[in-house]
């Protein structure tokens, strides 16, 4: 009997606790309308299958939140730099530099990658493939001391102070969290689909290519074979014929394309796998909008598309891990002692370049859905 008052008190505390917790639960979960699935997402079927993580479906709320975060300088430690500083829409979300300049003026290790059609192609991100999902990738530049140098806990506090963000986070994911930031940015990036270039119109049967572009397309799509009198630029051996990105199966989207010899070969994908045969292997990027994403390669060593084509044509460097496909692709009879390359004619190279220009998608570069949302609100 003497224990009764204590018991009653405990029960009372428990009831109040459960009620409070339940109230919070009701407020954050039950009263929150389901996010709206993006209804008109209809990428071309010739890009192939794509996967969206089941725990992060494409929703309007997530996209809108991700778009705001992408353009918000609060994401950097100095509050001066957003993702969009190194990923500018008019440059297909690159920055036109060999190495990006971080929030304290430091230079990044790699060139900023174009962001388009990342639902297709290699399932690993960054030039060296060190992130195995977009959700994992997007937080790294925010935290990187050279890049945006932001503490994620401090970022949460900063975002929670903004009422509009509280509402956007609540509508998309229930609460402000690091996980929600990663998911929202990933959703925005997944929605960056470029599929309205001249090449797309050609594939849809809506237009024809010029004679030069068509020759370039044929060269792009062919592995050279002297014995069959077939000339080729060999692009297709690494870039998928439709999405033009690297391959998605396993690590097929990473290889050593003969930029450096053994002495100067960088770590590349070996950082991830620890496998010496992946030394110097980097991610094959999409060639969509390639005419506006220079300078080229993981270190931006080539200023122009002409420079890139000259590399493949006559300047392939030997190393232990260089792709045999790149070594072997030659439009002349192979002389093992000669320099390695495609050995195409100057006008054939110009044709390939003309074809590459058909991959520019002006509507993607200016699509208002992907532009800075802050001109009107939040700031």
């Amino acid at each position: 009997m003497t224990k009764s008052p204590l018991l009653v008190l405990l029960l009372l505390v428990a009831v109040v606790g459960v009620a409070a917790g339940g109230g919070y639960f009701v407020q954050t979960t039950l009263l929150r309308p389901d996010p709206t699935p993006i209804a008109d997402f209809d990428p071309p079927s010739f890009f192939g299958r794509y996967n969206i993580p089941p725990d992060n479906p494409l929703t309007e709320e997530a996209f809108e939140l991700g778009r705001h975060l992408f353009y918000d300088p609060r994401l950097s430690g100095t509050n001066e730099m957003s993702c969009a500083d190194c990923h500018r829409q008019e440059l297909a979300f690159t920055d036109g530099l060999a190495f990006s300049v971080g929030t304290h003026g430091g230079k990044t290790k790699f060139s900023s990658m174009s962001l388009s059609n990342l639902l297709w192609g290699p399932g690993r991100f960054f030039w060296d493939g060190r992130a195995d999902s977009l959700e994992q990738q997007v937080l790294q530049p925010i935290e990187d001391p050279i890049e945006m140098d932001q503490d994620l806990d401090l970022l949460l506090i900063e975002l929670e102070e903004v009422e509009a963000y509280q509402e956007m986070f609540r509508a998309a994911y229930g609460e402000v969290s690091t996980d929600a930031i990663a998911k929202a940015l990933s959703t925005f990036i997944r929605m960056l689909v470029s599929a309205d270039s001249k090449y797309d119109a050609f594939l849809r049967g809506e237009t024809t290519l010029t004679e030069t572009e068509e020759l370039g397309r044929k060269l792009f799509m062919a592995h050279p074979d002297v014995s069959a009198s077939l000339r080729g630029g060999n692009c297709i051996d690494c870039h998928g014929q439709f999405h033009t990105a690297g391959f998605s199966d396993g690590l097929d989207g990473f290889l050593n394309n003969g930029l450096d010899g053994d002495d100067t070969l960088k770590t590349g994908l070996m950082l991830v796998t620890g496998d010496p045969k992946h030394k110097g292997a980097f991610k094959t990027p999409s060639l969509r909008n390639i005419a506006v994403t220079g300078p080229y390669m993981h270190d931006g060593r080539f200023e122009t598309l002409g420079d890139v084509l000259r590399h493949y044509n006559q300047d392939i460097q030997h190393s232990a891990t260089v792709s045999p496909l790149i070594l072997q692709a030659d439009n002349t009879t192979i002389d093992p002692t000669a320099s390695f390359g495609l050995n195409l004619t100057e006008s054939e190279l110009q044709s390939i370049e003309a074809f590459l220009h058909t991959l520019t998608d002006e509507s993607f570069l200016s699509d208002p859905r992907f532009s800075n949302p802050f001109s009107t609100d939040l700031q």
Partner: protein
Amino acid sequence: MKHVIISVVLCIAVLVAVIFAGPHFAGPKSVSLTFKAVVGGDPLVFEASLYPSPSGDDRFKVSAFRFFISNIQLEGDGERFSVPNSYHLARFDGPNGLYTINIPEVPLTEIDRITFSIGVDAAANTSIESVGDLDPNSRMAWNWEVGYKFVLMEGTLQSGDQLQPIVYHIGFDENIRPLAFSAERDLSSSETNIFAFEADLLKLFNSNTQINLAKKTSVVFDKVDARIIADNYASMISLKN
């Protein structure tokens, strides 16, 4: 005491029911086809091992070896089961180097014949649909006008101290090769039914026709050479159990 007796009786009844009813209620079984890659008698080790060339003194290293298996059919007891969407890319660079095709729910009680093709049938070969492992944006695809590489082998040939890349990409509709294997397997006797195949890479160059790698470092679009290798790979797969 009464409860204990009832429990024991119930347990026995359930056991008896399971033992007798089991085989009758056994649903469709799953079947696995496994493929192990070898070079002559040796296991395939990418990049590391140097294998003697079938003709000549040179030796070769393998950096990639893949092929398409398609249209698998299992036959037994007068019935035939066609595996749906049956386009499978055999590759051997996974953790244990073994390529496995799992076929769930095979509605057969026994299997006495297995047929499939190396390559891709003409209708699927130039289609841009992603069916099974077919992916027109993959390393096995050329372009939609040419179709898929059926068998891909890449590596390096070492002749003395000279190194040369070797590339064999064999495709074209006419180079599909249908294969048939006799088996004798009662599917009801075990839960997992594994058919273990072996694919001998050396047969590409040393079967119907012997190929001198130093003289033919690459076969891609040459129709005559491609057919010679296709006739060779027609005998590269054997059933080991």
